[in-house]
């Protein structure tokens, strides 16, 4: 059974998911990269974000007549947004952050406080992502920020697979893995030196 979360996502649904769980997302997915995070924190969000999903992504889009079509929309490296995300989560309360590569301690703490998740989407799988985006509902600050940095509001259906990489209970797959990799590396170094 595939689990689907639909926005607006209630806090208890996000809290029920644990690091390592896989789910799909339906509803509203809103892109925000570095500039969008910075500007939203400065002047407020152009739309309410509570319970919605935020996507670290600069899409490739095409305009056909009056409608925007999404060609490819893979995730960008989330670590750059660590500067903003904790405050962003506390003030605007999105329920899911979608990106790749994971985020740091400040974000992990904020996820726990507000009951939100960080979900990993496969890097490079831009076509798979685009196929789940059914419609571009609106775009904000396009002229000011340009296509990759603008705030795109996507209507998505079964967007995923998404892996819960950081949950609202203080668990981060990245943190656990890096400790494991360091232990493995000690054995690997010994193998090389002994060979």
């Amino acid at each position, binding site marked *: 059974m595939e689990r689907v979360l639909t926005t607006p996502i209630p806090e208890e649904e996000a809290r029920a998911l644990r690091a*390592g769980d*896989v789910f799909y997302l339906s509803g509203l997915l809103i892109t925000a990269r570095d500039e969008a995070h910075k500007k939203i924190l400065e002047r407020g969000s152009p739309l309410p974000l509570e319970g919605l999903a935020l996507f670290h992504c*600069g*899409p*490739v889009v095409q305009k056909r007549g009056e409608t925007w079509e999404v*060609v*490819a*929309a*893979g995730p960008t*490296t989330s670590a750059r947004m660590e500067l903003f995300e904790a405050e962003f989560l506390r003030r605007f309360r999105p329920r899911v952050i979608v990106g*790749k*590569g*994971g985020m740091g301690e400040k974000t992990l703490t904020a996820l726990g406080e507000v009951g939100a998740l960080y979900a*990993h*989407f*496969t*890097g*490079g*799988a*831009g*076509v*798979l992502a685009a*196929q789940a985006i059914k419609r571009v509902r609106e775009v904000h600050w396009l002229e000011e920020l340009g296509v990759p940095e603008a705030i795109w509001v996507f209507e998505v259906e079964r967007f995923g*697979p998404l*892996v819960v*990489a950081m949950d609202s209970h203080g668990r981060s*797959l*990245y943190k656990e*893995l*890096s400790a*494991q*990799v360091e232990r*493995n*590396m000690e*054995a*690997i*170094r010994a*193998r*090389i*030196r002994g*060979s």
Partner: protein
Amino acid sequence: MSLVEALAEGLARASTLLPQDVVRALERAREREEGPARVQLEAILRNVEMARSGRVPICQDTGTPTFFVRFGLDFPYLKELFSAVPEAVRQATKTVPLRPNTVHPFTGKNPGDNTGRFIPAVTWEPLPGDSVEIHILPKGGGSENCSALKMLPPGVGLKGIKEAVVEHVVAAGGLPCPPTVVGVGIGGGADLALKLGKIALLRPLGQRHPEPEVAALEEELEALINASGVGPMGLGGKTTVLAVHVEYAHRHPASLPLGIAVQCWAHRRAVVRIGPDRSVTVSP
């Protein structure tokens, strides 16, 4: 077919069709993995199939157009080929379409057609003969950022090389979008070591270096890196690299250059062959 059309077709196929050897390696990796790692490989393989059937780029980063031209000195259309390479890039940028990825480092201006100073990056390699073989490698930025040069003291020997490669690839974690393909260049000089690393990426997966010592190093590096547990997308698992390929050149007695060229799972490559009668084959 004009040479421009042939090369533009090669770049279009490289951007949208993953070579079969890479697809097979990803499928084998999927069978080995479970949990989040398997989920990543399933998503990757679905994405590859969608890109193939829709003829759209596999990844939104369509890379820096990179060409390796092995040309016969008696190939009759060399002059035409020389100008056909950048023209084919301009054409494919419009028709595929490719993301405009060439930014002027001082002004920030992007010409919008994937060409610029020294770009497309072309390596010309003259050979005896009258035909040409053009290898096309659209190289993504995320994995290129994880490439590196180490100037090792020669005294560290083969063990030092192994340790440096493994430490470097493992430290990169999920950043280069693993499972990656790693090209290792040993010897030559600083520039040649990195170039050899990139040339090593052109070899199909599953094809070992013809010299047994080099082939053994490739196998050992794969096993060591995959023992790290970094896994697909850095989420943990058995497959951190799909392959490690090694090339070498003789070195200066005082130097042991080590070039590490890292390529993401979307290891896009195409080969265009043109005969003296202008017959063209494009693969995949």
